[in-house]
C-alpha cells in the first residue's frame, strides 16, 4: 500500500464520529498541555525581552495582536477547506468542523481588532482608521457573524451546513484581499515584516517571542477546534436521543 492511499484511508476513517471522538479524547489532553506550555514560554519571552526604543512597552501588544490576526485568517481558511469537504466529498465531519470553527474565528478576529485598536491609540493617535487592512479585517469579522447567524437560522444541521458552505467559499475572496491589502494600497498599517521572500525584516529580539506566541495561539486554536467539534457531535447526539425519547414517550401513552 502506497502512502497517499493510506493517508486517504486514515482520513475517511475519521468520517465515523465515534472514531473521531476516540481520537479527540486521546489527543485533546496532550494538545491542551502543549498549549499551556507554549503559552508559558511565549508569555515569559514576551514580558522579559526588551521594549522597542521608540514604542516602549506597547510593543508587547504585538505578541497578542499579530498571532490573533494570523489565526483569524487561518481559521477562515480552515472553514473554507471544510466547506469544500462538505460540498465535494460530503465528509460528515466537515460541516461539524466548519460550524465549530466559526465562533472561534470570530473571537480571534475580535481580539485582533480590539488589541489593534488599543495599540493604535498610543502609536497612531487614533483608535480606528478606515484603511485597507483594518476595513478588510472588519469585513471578515462581519462575515464570521453572518455565517454564525446563518448556521443558527436553520434547524436542520445537514442543510444549513451545505448552504453555509457555499457562503463560506464565496467569502473566501476576502482572505487574499486582507493578506495583500497592505501591499496593494498605501495604508497606515505597516506592510508584512515576518513572512517575506527576502527573510523577516523584524529584529530577532521581537521575532522569537512573536513566533512562540504564534505557535501557542495556533495550538490554542486547534485544541479549541477539536473540543468544539467534539461538543457539536455530542450536541447532535443529545438532540437525536431526545427526539427518540419524545417519540417513544408518545407511543407508550397511546398504547398502554
Amino acid at each position: 500500500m502506497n502512502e497517499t492511499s493510506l493517508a486517504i484511508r486514515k482520513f475517511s476513517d475519521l468520517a465515523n464520529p465515534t472514531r473521531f471522538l476516540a481520537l479527540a479524547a486521546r489527543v485533546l489532553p496532550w494538545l491542551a498541555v502543549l498549549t499551556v506550555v507554549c503559552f508559558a514560554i511565549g508569555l515569559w519571552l514576551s514580558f522579559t525581552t526588551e521594549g522597542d526604543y521608540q514604542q516602549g512597552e506597547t510593543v508587547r501588544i504585538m505578541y497578542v495582536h499579530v498571532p490573533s490576526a494570523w489565526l483569524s485568517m487561518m481559521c477562515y481558511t480552515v472553514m473554507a477547506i471544510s466547506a469544500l469537504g462538505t460540498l465535494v466529498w460530503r465528509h460528515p465531519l466537515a460541516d461539524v468542523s466548519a460550524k465549530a470553527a466559526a465562533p472561534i474565528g470570530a473571537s480571534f478576529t475580535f481580539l485582533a481588532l480590539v488589541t489593534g485598536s488599543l495599540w493604535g491609540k498610543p502609536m497612531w493617535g487614533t483608535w480606528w482608521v478606515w484603511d485597507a487592512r483594518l476595513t478588510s479585517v472588519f469585513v471578515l469579522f462581519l462575515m464570521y457573524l453572518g455565517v454564525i447567524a446563518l448556521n443558527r437560522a436553520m434547524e436542520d444541521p445537514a442543510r444549513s451546513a451545505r448552504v453555509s458552505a457555499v457562503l463560506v467559499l464565496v467569502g473566501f475572496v476576502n482572505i487574499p484581499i486582507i493578506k495583500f491589502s497592505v501591499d496593494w494600497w498605501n495604508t497606515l498599517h505597516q506592510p508584512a515584516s515576518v513572512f517575506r521572500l527576502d527573510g523577516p525584516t523584524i529584529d530577532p529580539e521581537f521575532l522569537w517571542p512573536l513566533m512562540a506566541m504564534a505557535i501557542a495561539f495556533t495550538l490554542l486554536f486547534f485544541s479549541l477546534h477539536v473540543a468544539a467539534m467534539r461538543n457539536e457531535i455530542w450536541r447532535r447526539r443529545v438532540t437525536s436521543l431526545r427526539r427518540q425519547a419524545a417519540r417513544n414517550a408518545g407511543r407508550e401513552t397511546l398504547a398502554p
Partner: protein
Amino acid sequence: MIALFFRDLKLAVRAGGGAMLGVLFFMTVVAVIPFGVGPDLNLLARIGPAILWIGALLASLLGLDRLFQAEREDGSLDLLLMQETPLLLTVFVKCTAHWSATGLPLVVASPFLGLFMNMNELAIGATMATLLAGTPAITFIGAVGAAVAVALPRGGLLVSILVLPLAVPVLIFGISAVYAAIEDPAPFLPPFMILMAITLFFAVIGPVAAAAALRHSAD
C-alpha cells in the same frame, strides 16, 4: 431563456411586483440625508456621489430576497431546477432580469437625484456610469445571498447581512472612480476598470454559487 427574462421582467414591473419600490426607497434615502447633515449645498455636492452610491446599494439590497422566494412559494422553482437547461444559465438570466427591473431604474433616477445634491455635470455623469457598471455586481452577489436564504421563513434581513460585506469592494471602487473623475490628478479609468472587472468576476462566481446553494436547499 428569453421567455424567462421577459416573464420575470413583467412580473416585477406589473402590479405587486415592487420594482418601482426600489426607486422610491432610493429617493427617500437620498432625501433623508440633507435632513441629517444639514442643507449646506457645498457639503452635499462633495458627498453627493457617496450618498447616491450608498442609496443605490441599499435600494438594490431591498428587493433581493424576492429573487427566488416568489418562485419557491408558487412552486415554479422546482420546475426551474428540473429543467434541462443548466441551472447556472437560469440563475444568470433571472439575475439580469432582476437587474433590469430594479437596478436599471436606479441608474436612470440617479441624475435627477444628483441635481438635488448640487453635483455638477461631470460628477453626475461619472456617478451614472459607475452605477451602470457596478449595480449588476451587487445583483450577482445578492443572488448568492438570496439563494442561501431562500428556504428561511424570514430571510430578508439575513440576505442583507450576508451580502453587504461582499459588496464592499464594489462600493469602494465605484466611489473612488467617481472621485477620480471629479478631482483632476487621479485618473478615472483604473478604478473604473477594476469596477468592471469585479462585475464580470461576480457575474461568473455569483450564478455558480447561487445555483449550488439552490440545489442544496431544494432537497
